[in-house]
C-alpha cells in the first residue's frame, strides 16, 4: 500500500510540475482573456495582426493604448505570414483586426467571408475611395508607392524607366522583393502586367539580366544599401525614405511611364471577439492623429488632406491604371507565372 501511495505521489508530482511549468507562462494570458469576457467594461484586449511597418505599428499601438486604455496584442509579420496564420487558426480564431500590405489579399478575405463590414467608421468619407471597399469591409488607411530604389554611390546613370534595368550596365546589379513574401511586390507585378502589354517581356529581360529575387522588402533594400546590388525594382518607397533619412546612400525614383501605388488596408474579422475595440482601432487609424503617425513613417496617408513628410505626394507620382477589385484570383496566376520564370 505504502509503495503504491508513493508511486502515485511521485506521479502526481511529476505531472504537477509539468503543468505548473506550462501554466505559469499561460496564466497571464488566460487571466486577461477571462477578465475581458467577464467584465466588458474594464480593460479589454484587442488582438491585431499587422503587416508592418515595424515602427509605425508599434507607434500606433502605443498611441491607441494611451487613448483608449485598451490593451493591444500585436502579431507582426509579412502579409503572407498573417494570411497563413489566419488559415491555420480557422478552428479557433484569435484576431480581431487585420492590417495587410495588399488590397488584393484583403479583398480575398472579404470574398472568403472572413471580414465584417463597418460602414459607419469615422472619417470613412475622407479616405481615398480607390483604396477602400465601398461596402466598408476594409479601408486603405495608408499606401506606399513602388519605385526603383538605387544606391547613390554606385549608380552613375540614374534609371528613369523600368526597361532601363534590362540594359547591360545593370547586369547582375538588380533585385526585387519576393512576391510570395511581400504583398507590395505582388501588387507591383499585378499592376505592371495589367497595365503594360510588354510587361512580361520586360520581366523576362530582367531575369536574363540577372535579376535576383531577394526575400522580403527590407532584405532587398538592404542589398542595395550595403552595395551588393545597385537597384531594387519595386522597392517600397517609405523604407527607402527612412533609410535615406538615417544617412544611407539610397534614393528612389518613380519611372515616368507610371508605377503602382500599393495601399495598406485595415479590416475587422468576422469572428472578432472584441468588435467594439476593433471599431475603435479602425477609427483611430482613420483619424487625423492616426494619419499623422502614418506620414511620420514616410507613408502616403489615406486622407488626402494630411500633408506628407519628406517624400513625394500622391499626385507627384506617375501611376499606372490599376483596379484592385477582384484582383486576388488573378494575382495567384501571376504569382505562379512569376515563380515559373524564377524558380
Amino acid at each position, binding site marked *: 500500500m505504502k*509503495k503504491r501511495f*508513493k*508511486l502515485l505521489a*511521485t506521479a502526481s508530482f*511529476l*505531472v504537477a*510540475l*509539468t503543468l505548473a*511549468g*506550462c501554466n*505559469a*507562462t*499561460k496564466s497571464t*494570458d*488566460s487571466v486577461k482573456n477571462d477578465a475581458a469576457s467577464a467584465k466588458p467594461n474594464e480593460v479589454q484586449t484587442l488582438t*491585431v*495582426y499587422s503587416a*508592418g*511597418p515595424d515602427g509605425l505599428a508599434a507607434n500606433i499601438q502605443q498611441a491607441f493604448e494611451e487613448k483608449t486604455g485598451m490593451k493591444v*496584442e*500585436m*502579431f*507582426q*509579420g*509579412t502579409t*503572407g*505570414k498573417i*494570411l*497563413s496564420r489566419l*488559415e*491555420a*487558426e480557422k*478552428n*479557433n480564431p*484569435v484576431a480581431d483586426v487585420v492590417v495587410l500590405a495588399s488590397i488584393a*489579399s484583403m479583398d480575398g478575405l472579404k470574398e472568403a467571408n472572413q471580414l465584417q463590414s463597418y460602414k459607419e467608421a469615422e472619417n470613412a468619407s475622407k479616405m481615398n475611395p480607390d483604396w477602400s471597399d465601398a461596402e466598408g469591409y476594409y479601408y486603405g488607411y495608408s499606401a506606399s508607392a513602388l519605385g526603383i530604389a538605387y544606391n547613390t554611390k*554606385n549608380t552613375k546613370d540614374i534609371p528613369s524607366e523600368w526597361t532601363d534595368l534590362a540594359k547591360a550596365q545593370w547586369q547582375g546589379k538588380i533585385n526585387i522583393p519576393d512576391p*510570395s*513574401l511581400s*504583398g507590395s511586390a*505582388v501588387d507591383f507585378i499585378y499592376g505592371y502586367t495589367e497595365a503594360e502589354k510588354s510587361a512580361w517581356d520586360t520581366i523576362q529581360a530582367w531575369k536574363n539580366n540577372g535579376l535576383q529575387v531577394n*526575400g*522580403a*522588402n*527590407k*532584405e532587398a533594400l*538592404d*542589398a542595395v*544599401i*550595403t*552595395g*551588393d546590388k545597385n537597384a531594387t525594382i519595386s522597392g517600397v518607397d517609405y523604407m527607402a525614405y527612412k533609410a535615406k533619412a*538615417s*544617412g*544611407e*546612400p*539610397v534614393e528612389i525614383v518613380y519611372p515616368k511611364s507610371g508605377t503602382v501605388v500599393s495601399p495598406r488596408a485595415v479590416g475587422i474579422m468576422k469572428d472578432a471577439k472584441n468588435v467594439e475595440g476593433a471599431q475603435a482601432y479602425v477609427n483611430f487609424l482613420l483619424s487625423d492623429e492616426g494619419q499623422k503617425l502614418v506620414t511620420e513613417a514616410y507613408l502616403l496617408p489615406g486622407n488626402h488632406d494630411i500633408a506628407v513628410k519628406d517624400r513625394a505626394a500622391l499626385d507627384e507620382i506617375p501611376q499606372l491604371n490599376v483596379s484592385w477589385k477582384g484582383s486576388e484570383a488573378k494575382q*495567384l496566376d501571376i*504569382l505562379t507565372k512569376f515563380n515559373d520564370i524564377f*524558380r
Partner: protein
Amino acid sequence: MIMESRRSFGLLLTIVATFAIAPLIAIVYYTFVHDGIFDVSQFSRMFANERLWQTLGNSLLLGVLVILGTTILALPMAFIRTKTTLQKYDWLDIVLTIPFMTPPYIGSMGWILFMQNNGFLQQLVPGTAWLSDAFFSLFGMVMVMSLHLFPFLYLMLKNTLLRINGSFLDAALIFGRSSLRNWLQVILPLLISSYVLGILLIFIKTLAEFGTPATFGSRIGFQVFTTEIHAYLSRWPVDIRMATSLSVFLLSVCLIIWYFQNLIGRKFTYSVLSGKTPAAREIKDKWFIQLGSWFYVGFVLLFAIGIPYFSIIVTSLQKVRGDGLRAGNFTLASYQAVFTSGSAGLTAFINSVVFSIFTAVITAIIGLFIALYIKKGETKKQQLLDFFSLMPNIIPGIVFVVGLIMFWNAPWLPATIYNTKAMVVVTYCVLFLPYAVQYTKSSLSQLDQSIFQSAAIFGRNSWDVYRAIIIPLLMQGILAGMMMTFIISMRELVAGLLILPPSVETGATFIYSQFEQGNVGIGMAVAVITVAMTVVFMFLLNWLQRWGGHVRA
C-alpha cells in the same frame, strides 16, 4: 523500485505520447483524412509536383556534400587534438564548439555580408570580386553549413580516438608491424562505428536545418524540404495540406535513413570502453607537424569563427551601413537601443531566456524519470520508451512543429494551449527532450550497480534512495543537460517563427525579423549578446564537468 512499476511506464509513456507522438499522428491524419474519409489524393498531388523531386534531390545532395565537408574539417582536427602536442590545450574544444552554438542563420548572414558584392572582403582586399561569384553557389552553402556542423562530428571522433589511444594502441604497437598497418587495420575499423553514427546525425541535421537554407539557399535559389514546408505554411498562397504531406515525406526519409544506420552500426560495434583509463602519454612532435597543426587549427578557426563574427560585430557597430568599413563610421547606438528598457530587442531576448529556463527545467525532470526507467534498455518497454524519447533527434524539428500546430488546433480539443506562451515551452520541450535524456542516461551509466545494491540494503525506502543518493550523483549530468537544453533553446528559430502567439517574440525571431523588416544593426547587436551569453554558459558547462570529475576522482 519505483521506476520499474507498470504504472510509471504508463505515465511516462502518456506524457511522451501526448507531447511527441500525437503531433506526428496529427500530421499523418491531416494528410490522409479529408472530411472523415481516407484520401490519398493530397499525397499523390505532392508526388505529381515536379518540384518535390527537385527538393528531395537538393536535400539529399546537400546532405551528402555536407557530410563530405564536415569530414574534411573534423577528421584532421580530431587527429590533431589526440595525436599531436595540441592535445593538451583543452580550451580549444570550447572554442571549436562556438560555431555549432552560433545560430546558423546568423552565421550565414555573416558570411553573406562578408562575401557579397561590395561586401567586407572587397572593401578589405580590392580585386576579389571574382571570389563572390564562386562563393554564392552550392559550394558556398555547403561550406557555410559544414563550418557550422563540423564540431559535432569532431567531438564524436575525438572521444572515440581518445578511448582507442589506450590499450588498443599498446597492443598494436607490440604485435603490429608497420605503423601504417596499425592505422589501417586497428584504428580505422574502430573509428568506423562512431563515424557512421556521426555522419548520419550530420545528414539528418542537414535535412532539418532551416536557418542557412532560408538565408543563403534562397539567395542562390536552392530550395530544400524545410524551406519548402515553411513556405507552404507562411507564404501566400498558403497550402497547409501540402506542408503536412511534405512533412510526412520528410519523416519517412529520416526514418529510413535511421533504419539503415542501425543496420550498419550493429555490424561495426566494438566495445572500446574498457574500465581502464588510457594513460596520457608524452608526445613529441617534429616541428613541421606542430607548425602544420597550428596552421590547420588557425585556418579552421578563422573560417568558422573569425569571418562570420567579424561581419556580425562590425554590422552591429556600423553607423551608416552604406558607408562600409571606414574610420568614424562606428557607434554603440545599436547596443544602446537594445539596452533601453522595454525595447523590443531586450524584451525578445528576455522572453528567450525565460522560455529556455522553463524548457531546461521541465525536460530535466521528465528526462530524469525517463532515464531512471530506461536504465540500460533491457526490456522491450524500456527500449520503446527510449526510442520515443530520442525520436525528436532523428526527426527534423519543423516536422514536429507542424504536427504540434495541427494537433493543438484540432477542433475536438476541449482546451488548447495554442497561441499561448505555454505552446512555445511545450514545443521546445518536445524538441529538446532527447538532450536531457541522453545526458542523464550517460551519467546514470557511470554509476556502478553496487551503488544501487548497497542503497537498497541500507536505505530506508526507495524514495529515500533516489532523493539522497541517486539524484545527487546524477546532478552533474542533469545540470549539463540543462545547460545544453538552455543553449539550444536560445537559438531555436523555426519553431518560434511558426508558433509564437501575438505580441511575443524570441531573440531568434526578433533577429530574423530585423532582416525582413527592421534594423539589421539592432538585430546583429542582439545576436552578439546572445552568442556572448552562450559562450559564457559553455565555459560554465565545461567547468561544471571538470569540477564533477575532480570530485569523483
